[in-house]
């Protein structure tokens, strides 16, 4: 059913929680797990420079690469796709990756912001719902 599973991760704990589900889905179907990470960049400053939204972006990326390596080590067909996007546009990049790969499902973690938090900070999972070409499985941080 889910031959191609995308796990979209920002390197956070809630994304890690979603990995358990993504992995189970891929393993169950004997399918491929595509790990997608988007490095969100700030809007250009005066000098035209753009910075990663997450100051520890390098660490996050290294952590994700280790996770992909571990998945492959466990016998799973896991690949890593990294990209960049302007802040708030990660959902577009993930949806495009899903479309290009012909993914059957996208698995993401949810930070569970309050309504105000959603308004102020925005929710990647929510944005993804507006763009995803396939089902989106959202795993809340509080999921058991």
């Amino acid at each position, binding site marked *: *059913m889910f031959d191609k599973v995308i796990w979209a991760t920002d390197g956070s704990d809630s994304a890690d929680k979603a990995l358990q*589900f993504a992995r*189970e*889905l891929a393993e*169950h179907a004997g399918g491929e797990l595509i790990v997608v990470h988007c490095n969100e960049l700030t809007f250009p400053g005066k000098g035209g420079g753009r910075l990663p939204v997450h100051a520890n972006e390098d660490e996050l990326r290294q952590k994700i690469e280790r996770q992909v390596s571990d998945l492959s080590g466990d016998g799973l067909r896991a690949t890593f796709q990294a990209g960049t996007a302007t802040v708030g546009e990660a959902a577009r990049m993930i*949806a*495009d990756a899903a*479309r290009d790969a012909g993914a059957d*499902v996208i698995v993401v973690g*949810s930070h*569970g*912001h*309050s*309504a105000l938090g*959603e308004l102020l900070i925005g*929710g990647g*999972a*929510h944005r993804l*719902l*507006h*763009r*995803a*070409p*396939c*089902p*989106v*499985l*959202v*795993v*809340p941080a*509080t*999921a*058991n």
Partner: protein
Amino acid sequence: MLRIGTHVARASPDSVGFRSDPRLLPGLPANQEPGPFGDHNWKRRDGPDLLRRLTRFKGGDVDEIDQATRRSAQERADEGARLAHDVGLQARAATCSQATTTARAILRHADEIGANAVVMESRGLTGLKELLIGSVSHEVIQHADRTVIVVPSPEVAAHRAKAFHEEVE
């Protein structure tokens, strides 16, 4: 009391199997089309929606609205269960009436039955429509403490594919 009908169909999909005893809860409001099980031939009916009923019974008997909404919810729950059954799941329909938002009613019911996941269809509302009408799936995701699977309807998926190709071109 005016009840906002919410219908659910429970399924035990062995084929999905991401839990040892998985139970999925496809949750839909009474005035929303089911379809998360991928029956693309499922026809949009001229079924009753709440707004039309409110108009018809304007100033009338609230109990009648209650009963009509309950019947509508049951019909749609039955339809959802049939769709789930058609794709090999063990499913049964259930409805509930609660004086709350549709999303919270779905989540409360999911709590009651210990569902592992809630499966919903995305109506694809954006912008002002989403703001005014509200997005059930968004509210469910925001408050859920269990996994939620949101499936774009065939119409929504086709619309997004078209929009994507237009962007690329």
